[in-house]
């Protein structure tokens, strides 16, 4: 909208950086080279955990003064919901924070489309593989917490559509 012709590095560029460094970049296949292995999973975790960008400026990414940090934080909060299998690995405090956010309801209503995307399935798989605790969550928290129940329906749209009319109804409000 306001490109004025040129590319920029702006408030949400950190997401680009994380994606490029952890999902892309040259992988060196050699016996003498080691790496932490699943950097992609690490990227998912990091994206999920990014809730504040203040320190980014210190390390060189320049965020304009007018950057709406709250918006950015909410965006990252939402991505935690979508990645909830992974996020549970990180611990519960972020989930608790989300409970307080009224907006998260409206945000979630659009989420079901997520499940129809091929990539999302891939992510759910790789995320699940990385955190065993997440598997336990699926059954346990669904009844206990509305937040998690909605999160589930978001990542398993197909099943939700068939078996969970209530969740589907929530989608309709969209």
């Amino acid at each position, binding site marked *: 909208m306001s490109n004025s012709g*040129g590319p920029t590095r702006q408030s949400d560029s950190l997401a*680009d950086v994380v994606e490029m*460094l952890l999902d*892309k970049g040259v992988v*060196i296949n050699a016996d*003498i080279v080691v790496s932490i292995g*699943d950097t992609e999973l690490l990227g998912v975790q990091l994206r999920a955990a990014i809730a504040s960008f203040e320190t980014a400026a210190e*390390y060189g990414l320049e965020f304009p003064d007018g950057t709406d940090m709250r918006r950015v934080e909410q965006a990252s909060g*939402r991505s935690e919901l979508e990645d909830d299998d992974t996020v549970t690995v990180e611990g519960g405090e972020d989930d608790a924070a989300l409970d307080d956010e009224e907006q998260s309801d409206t945000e979630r209503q659009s989420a079901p489309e997520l499940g129809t995307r091929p990539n999302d399935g891939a992510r759910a798989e790789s995320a699940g593989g990385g955190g065993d605790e997440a598997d336990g969550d699926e059954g346990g928290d669904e009844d206990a917490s509305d937040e998690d129940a909605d999160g589930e329906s978001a990542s398993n749209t197909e099943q939700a559509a068939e078996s969970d009319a209530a969740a589907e109804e929530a989608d309709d409000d969209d």
Partner: protein
Amino acid sequence: MADDTDTEGETEFEEGRYLYCAVTVDDGTDLDTDGVDDEPVRLLAVDDIGVVLHDCESLYDTADMDELRKWVLQHQNVVDAAGEAFGTPIPFQFDTVLTGDDDRVREWVAEERGTLGDYLDRLAGHWEYRVELRREEEALREDLVASDDRLAELDEEIEAAGSGTAFMLEKQYDQRLRELRRERRTDRAAALRDRLDEFVLDVNELGERTTLDDEDGDDDGMETQARFTVLATEDDEEGMGEMLDEVAAETGVEVRFTGPWPPYSFVPAIGGEDGTETGG
């Protein structure tokens, strides 16, 4: 990386080199900056190919996401500085460590000289740019509703139906809307890709997975319709920017255009199975 899962145990070693990127070395140019975990970064030149690295004794692994984020940004800063000093670098993936001393690095560079040289030549003067096309959720919905006969029919049927039937019809309505959204996304992505192709050396479509706000309808009410990463020269920037401005001129459409980045998405895996692209 997947085929080396057992390396996860080897996070400690006696001597290693954390690798940031490979560059084409000019005479006399050096690099003086701090890297991941504030380690001093240096350039190890092997003839005309330089490797930007720092000395380390372990991999950088942490469960502390703040720390990880800091490292990632520090890594990026080094690659940025290298790009500024030496031109387009070949950026390595975060936390790539070669075990051994400088001589091992030299040996490795000698072994991979062909691949590294080819890519440095090919990428010279080119940078990665990222383009994301977004559309206002509500405007998109209105647009789709107004243009689809099937939705109009369903709407009428819902009006006329009892509550049970209406419930089922509403499901169909949403289903139809979802299909239309998907179609629209595909169309827009294809159209934008065609236009980008005119300007750039290479275009890759990115999946939805990795943006921070990767789903439509987050708090700003925007839906991502397409994401691309392109390889282009700085001279192409202006033309691309103008073209994207045209795209963004449509009501409710927003374009994110970031860069220049080191060409992370346009580099090969080096060694092992040749020609394997990294990532997507």
